[in-house]
């Protein structure tokens, strides 16, 4: 396949894309109904609140424990993987990660790469990098395949093509796959994808996958999937390259078990996915199949910035289930592409500032009503609203202000005008005398309330203060005139 043009989108253009998304009624309906479907599916997997909360406590404890020992666990993972014949690579930046993989491909003379689902590979724009250097890179997860065929990017971390209807996909297949006619029959569409990709699995030189949990103690990569493309990608090609963020490691196999229960139940409302694929190294003497060589690429890309701060570190507890986006009122309205980031929705809003810097992502932390639905369903209890508020604070902080752990892009939203407005505001509300003056003015001059009140009146009638404030009413009562 020829290189598909990728849409390089900037998170800085968030607002414009939001307007487009909100104007697209069809898209909004797709997302809303898909989100309700996924919410109901998840709820059906957690019928017992006591068990649910106990398991979430445990999931959180596992992730916090792993993060507390992160550097030691990464070294342990590396040593145990190496003992099993896996080559371990470390990448600071997306470019380094891509270059490592390109080097492996070049040394092996590989031309064809087949990919299982990996959000980290999306994060580093691997397909684009390899295609530009003459290495064909084909997505094999059905959703990812559809999105790649359309020249788009995933709009959801678990369901990449959730923004598309079956009609969209029927048209896409008809246009892009030779010899395929238009059909809205989902089984037939899936069968088409299967036929195209099976041949590619057989021919591929390299299989690339993500990692759901890496187990330090045993040197094991745990992959979770339904389709079998992950198993094919990690089994059939001669070389398997796994990619993961440095936060994905846990200490022991036992520690991974509660996460393996929480992940599918939270993500797709399944008790377990079709396959849990636990890989502990390449083909050994006596094995008949499996890749002959295996690599793991560990990516930082800003994660160590989140790690440096004791509060923001909770961002890295994430197991990428997507439940936060499924339950988010904002995500359900604007869809995944509007965010312009690899990871959309609430988790993307707290993770992207570390990956991209606050400058490029400054509108993301504010795009939340802080309703808390995300934190309520998060299987590892990431306090997403608190982290959003913290990022807002860092974005508002003066760019030069000295802090212990400055974030990249600190002060991206700083404006002297805004700062003065808040100073003024707090000056009024912290002073009974000034606040009395405000009340007096607001109630006596209520008829002068502006008809246009910033964003409020775009969708609402104007607010008009009451004729007498509660303070006035209470004072009158105290004077013995309770009838007012």
């Amino acid at each position, binding site marked *: 396949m020829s290189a598909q043009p990728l849409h390089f989108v900037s998170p800085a253009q968030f607002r414009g894309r939001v307007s487009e998304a*909100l104007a697209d009624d069809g898209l909004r309906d797709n997302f809303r109904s898909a989100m309700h479907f996924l919410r109901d599916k998840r709820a059906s997997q957690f019928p017992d609140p006591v068990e649910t909360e106990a398991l979430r406590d445990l999931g959180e404890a596992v992730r916090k424990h792993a993060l507390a020992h992160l550097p030691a666990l990464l070294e342990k993972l590396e040593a145990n993987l190496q003992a099993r014949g896996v080559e371990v690579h470390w990448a600071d930046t997306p470019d380094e990660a891509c270059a490592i993989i390109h080097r492996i491909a070049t040394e092996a003379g590989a031309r064809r790469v087949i990919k299982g689902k990996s959000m980290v590979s999306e994060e580093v724009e691997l397909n684009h990098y390899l295609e530009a250097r003459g290495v064909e890179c084909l997505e094999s997860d059905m959703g990812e395949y559809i999105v790649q065929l359309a020249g788009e990017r995933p709009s959801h971390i678990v369901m990449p093509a959730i923004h598309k209807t079956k009609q969209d996909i029927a048209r896409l297949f008809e246009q892009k796959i030779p010899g395929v006619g238009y059909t809205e029959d989902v089984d037939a569409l899936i069968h088409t994808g299967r036929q195209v990709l099976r041949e590619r699995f057989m021919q591929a030189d390299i299989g690339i996958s993500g990692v759901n949990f890496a187990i330090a103690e045993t040197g094991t990569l745990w992959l979770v999937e339904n389709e079998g493309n992950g198993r094919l990608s990690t089994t059939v090609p001669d070389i398997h390259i796994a990619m993961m963020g440095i936060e994905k490691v846990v200490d022991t196999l036992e520690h991974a078990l509660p996460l393996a229960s929480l992940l599918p139940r939270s993500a797709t409302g399944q008790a377990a996915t079709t396959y849990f694929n636990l890989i502990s190294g390449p083909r050994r003497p006596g094995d008949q199949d499996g890749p002959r060589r295996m690599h793991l690429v560990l990516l930082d890309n800003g994660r160590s910035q989140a790690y440096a701060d004791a509060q923001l570190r909770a961002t890295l507890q994430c197991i990428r289930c997507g439940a936060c986006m499924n339950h988010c009122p904002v995500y359900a*309205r604007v869809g995944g592409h509007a965010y312009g980031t690899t990871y959309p929705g609430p988790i993307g809003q707290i993770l992207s500032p570390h990956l991209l810097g606050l400058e490029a992502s400054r509108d993301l932390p504010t795009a939340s009503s802080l309703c808390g*639905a995300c934190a309520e369903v998060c299987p590892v209890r990431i306090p997403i609203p608190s982290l959003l508020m913290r990022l807002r604070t860092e974005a508002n902080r003066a760019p030069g202000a000295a802090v212990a752990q400055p974030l990249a892009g600190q002060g991206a939203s700083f404006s002297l005008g805004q700062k003065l407005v808040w100073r003024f505001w707090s000056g009024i509300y912290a002073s009974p005398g000034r606040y009395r003056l405000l009340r007096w003015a607001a109630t006596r001059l209520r008829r002068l309330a502006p008809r246009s009140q910033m964003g409020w009146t775009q969708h609402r009638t104007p607010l008009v203060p009451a004729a007498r404030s509660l303070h006035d009413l209470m004072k009158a009562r105290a004077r013995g005139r309770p009838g007012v």
Partner: protein
Amino acid sequence: MHAVRPPRPDQVYLFGTCLIDLFVPEAGLDAVRLLEREGLTVHYPPAQSCCGQPAFTSGNPDEARRVAAAQIALFDQPWPIVVPSGSCAGMMRHHWPTLFDDDPALQARARDVAGRVHELAGFLVEVLAVDYSAAGGEPVTVGLHTSCSARREMGTRVHGVQLLSALPGVTLDTHASESECCGFGGVFSLKHADISGAIVRDKVASLSAVCDRFVTADCGCMLNITHAAEHQGRPLRGEHIATFLRRRLEGAA
């Protein structure tokens, strides 16, 4: 399952909140009436203003701290502090103590105050165990909107349901996506007006499908939903739960 009921006080503070103070003062007054009906003396410190939430949630903790510190000084008697708003109660209960990590003395006072903060509906049910079986009025169907903070930080949706269900002649109708946010989010409604507008449009639609009057314990949500409905020309109107309860107790429709 409820813990042992806290001792019934005979004096309480009312923290009226800035939105009620300027935009829905009768809700504050009705909260006072409901508390007095139970034989309590209600103290309203006149120097009170705002819990500081707008600054806090928009990432301006210094300004939130300044405003919160001014409030904390007003509640020196050991009386409960009743707040007719779930989100302000949540701010005071859960976030005030975190504002003063660098000031142990003020933090200790903030903790003491935070521990005495109650959301109104929760207070009526849990502490006062009110009996509203003698309320009257025309049969009416209402919807209930619980703010996200009330629901998730204060756990008081159940109290709203309990209070409304106990009223003779009142039918409570649940609407689709009841647990979903109304899109207010304070400064969010100004900063991301389009997204907020899309969310509230759906909330107005789902409430309108079951009722044309809804009750809520949060003025932020109430103003958001009511003014959005008015903007769309829909008849949906909201009422603060304190006002609705007071009217039913007086036998009004």
